[in-house]
């Protein structure tokens, strides 16, 4: 695109010109709609949002309040901790089941794969209902715990509920990435390690995990970013304003505290973006929020 822009400036389009120049103009034409839509509806509004964040009574310090205000800071910390935990749990599940599903061939395998990836595009609100079904007052876990211990376990409406919900919607995404990576693992590497005397745990540690590492980093980063921004589940579970997106929503809709909401959004966006960027620098390209 450098070349597109440069060429458009430099070279008038005439039949005798470099054939490439004409092509560059056509290409520029093709990408223009996307650029226009994106600039008008995302870049511009976001720029305005960043400005809004500094427009409140506290001015630019609104941004700092995210760290200095105890409630905001603790919410941020909670969100970070929750997302981190969700990421690690999901990765562990995905590695165990993903490797299993890729490596083993048995009756019902593809059905299991379908099951594991089915909730891929469930919106957060629906996940909320799933958590209620699992851990609500009438949830299956409560029923089982009453039957077993005589105590009703209800976790849907606290952090545990959020954790369960986030793991629920992270599993399909992460497992897909891990399975794709596992499929590309070079079996010969494992055979080579074994031929050199490595036992199965050593093969896992020295060959499989390093082989999966880029996929784990990238899908982990996506999982983390999604958890940071997830909102529907928290909304459905009504888990107060304990996670940052809920807090932003509350600040905006309840307290009409638009500057703070904007500032919090920008900070949240920056953190997620930074995590993704960091992961990319470790794992190479391919780290994006693609599902």
């Amino acid at each position, binding site marked *: *695109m450098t070349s*597109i822009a440069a060429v458009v400036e430099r070279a008038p389009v005439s039949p005798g010109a470099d054939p490439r120049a004409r092509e*560059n103009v056509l*290409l520029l034409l*093709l*990408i223009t*709609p*996307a650029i226009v*839509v994106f600039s008008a*509806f*995302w*870049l*511009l*509004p*976001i720029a*305005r*949002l960043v400005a*809004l964040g500094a427009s409140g009574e506290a001015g630019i310090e609104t941004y700092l309040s995210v760290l200095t205000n105890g409630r905001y800071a603790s919410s941020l910390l909670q969100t970070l901790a929750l997302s981190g935990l969700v990421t690690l749990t999901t990765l562990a*599940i995905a590695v*165990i089941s993903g490797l*299993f599903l890729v490596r*083993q061939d*048995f009756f019902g395998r593809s059905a*299991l794969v*379908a*099951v594991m*990836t*089915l*909730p891929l*595009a*469930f*919106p*957060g*609100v*629906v996940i*909320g*209902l*799933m958590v209620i*079904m699992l851990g609500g007052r*009438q949830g*299956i876990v409560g029923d089982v715990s009453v039957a077993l211990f005589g105590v009703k376990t209800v976790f849907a409406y606290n952090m545990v509920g959020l954790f369960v919900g986030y793991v*629920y919607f992270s*599993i399909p995404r992460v497992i897909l990435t891990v399975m794709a990576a596992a499929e590309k693992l*070079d079996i010969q590497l494992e055979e080579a390690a074994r031929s050199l005397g490595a036992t199965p745990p050593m093969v896992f540690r020295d060959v499989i995990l390093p082989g999966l590492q880029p996929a784990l980093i990238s899908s982990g980063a996506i999982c983390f*970013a999604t958890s940071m*921004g997830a909102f529907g589940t928290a909304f*459905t579970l*009504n888990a107060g304003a304990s996670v940052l997106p809920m807090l932003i*929503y509350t600040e905006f809709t309840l307290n009409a505290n638009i500057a703070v*909401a*904007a500032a919090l*959004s920008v900070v*949240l*966006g*920056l953190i*997620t*973006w930074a995590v*993704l960027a960091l992961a990319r620098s470790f794992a190479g390209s391919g780290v*994006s929020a*693609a599902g």
Partner: protein
Amino acid sequence: MRHGIGFWLQLGFTLLVSAFLMVPIGMSILAGFTENYFRGPSSGLTTRWIVEVWERYGDNIFLSLGIAASCLVVTILIGVPAAYVLAKRQSRLSRMFEELIILPVAIPGLATALALVMLYGTFGGFRSSWTFVLVGHVLYTLPFMVRSVLAVLSSIDLRTLEEGAASLGAGFWTRFWTIVLPNAGSGILAGSLMVTTLSIGEFNLTLLLTTPFTQTIPVGLAVAYTNARLELGSAYTVLFFAMIIPLLVAMQIWGNPSRTSTKRKRRALEKVVSP
């Protein structure tokens, strides 16, 4: 003894995870058809909740479908050409653009929605029309279309194919229509499934963009969950599943452009024949 203990342990674990994913779906479907969920299925099965949802929220469903279809058209119209350009010109700027368009997905949807409301909320009828929701959905789904088309185009050595066509006398547009688009087909299909599915299910962005007149399914679901009987919310969920699960299944079949139907065979072969 074909399988060792490790196999059974992993199978058990995987089944447990599947149960974790599937049981609540089953329960919510059951709830959607139960007279009184608190008393359980013994209170009788009924379709009255479904009927009530249809009466109450039928509009949401049609609105969501309309928005998803429009979103699909827009992302194809602007996303496919963009993906083609990105596939053809690998420069720092094009990579930057690729990065940028992912941001609405990467950063929390609430931020994007807030930004849209703050900047365009004051534009006459735009704010209260469904196109306002559409804009959000286009931003959110565009990268999926672009990436899936781009993935296919990058995997087919587009440059050489086009050079081949050019050597046979095909100009820019001829190449675009006869070579580029047909070969991007699987990517467009995969992207389309993704875009439709995501648009139907989008909530994070949508909540702030809707008005009571432009409520989409997930927003309606959220209201039903917090506001209405569990049975009603579940019945609504059943309708939602009925729409989204076929799409998800289609996505598993056609959604991954790099996987072919002979994948299994190939895998078996790859075990012995080196890559």
